C-alpha cells in the first residue's frame, strides 16, 4: 500500500476518532457535573 495513502487515511481516522472521543468525554463530564450540582 502507498505510504501517502496510508498516512492520509490514518490522519483522517485519528482526527475523527480523536474528536468523537473528546466530545464523548466532555459530554460525560458535563452530565456528571450537572448531577452533582442538582444533588
Amino acid at each position, binding site marked *: *500500500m*502507498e505510504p*501517502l*495513502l496510508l*498516512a*492520509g*487515511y490514518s*490522519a*483522517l481516522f485519528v*482526527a*475523527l476518532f480523536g*474528536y*468523537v472521543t473528546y*466530545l*464523548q468525554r*466532555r*459530554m460525560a463530564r*458535563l*452530565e456528571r*457535573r*450537572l448531577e452533582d*450540582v*442538582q444533588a
Partner: protein
Amino acid sequence: MNGNSPTDDGDARTQGSRGSNVRFARIIGTVTGILHRVTGSRFVAWGAFGFGLLSMVLVFGFASDTMYGIEHGANLLAYWHISLAWVAAAALGSTFVGSALYLRYRGPFWSRLAHSSGELGFLFATLTLLLGSAWGRVIWNSWWEWTDVRLVTFLIVWFIYAGYLVVYSATDAQSGDRYAAVYGVVGFVTVPLSYASTRLWTPTFHETTIGNSGVSANIDPLTLVVTLVAATFLYLYLLGIRIRIHELEQDVRRARHSRRR
C-alpha cells in the same frame, strides 16, 4: 368606500403580521424538533458507521486508482477529500442559516446550531486541505500551489472560520453570540465564492467538474455517493453531540445560578 377607519386598517394589518409571525414560529419550532430528533437518533450513528465501513470497502476494494491518467494508490484519497469538502460547505451553510435565524429570532438553539456547525465545518475544511494536499502531491507533483484559485480561496475560508471560532470563544455568552452570528452571516460569502472560483477565474489546477464533460477524473460515482452519505451521517452525528454539549453547559450554569439563590 368599505366604511373602515384608518385605525381599523392598521389593527387588521398588525393582527395579520402577528398571525404570520406565529405561523412562522410554529414552523421554526417543528424544524427545531425534527433537527433534535434526527441528530440524536441511533439511526444517524449507525448510518455513519455502516456507510463509513462500506465506503472503505469500496475505496480500498473496488475503486480504480488511476485518475487524470496517473496510476497511483494515493489517488484513492480523492473520495474522502471531495466528500469532506462538500460536507464542510454544508456545515458552514448551516452556520450561516443558524446565525441569520439567531439574529432574527434570538432562540438559543440557532446560536448552538451555528457554532456547532462552524466548529465541525472548520474540522472538515482542515481535513479537506490535508487530504487534498497529499492528493495534489501525486497528480500535480506539488503539496501546494499559490497560483490555483480554488486552493487559495479555500484557505481564505479556513482562516475566516478559524476567526469565527476565536470570536465565539473570546466574547462573553450574551454579546458573544450576537457578534459571532454577524460574523457567521458575513463570513459565509467566502464559501460560495470558493466553490464558484473555478468558473469565475481561470483555474490552473482545479477544474470545474460538475457539468464539465471534458474532465477525465475517472472518479467512481457509486463510491463517491456512498462516501458522501457516510460523511453527511458523520456530520449529523457529531452535530447532535456538539449541540447536546452546549445544552448541558447551559443546564450546569442555570443549576449553579439557582443553587446560589
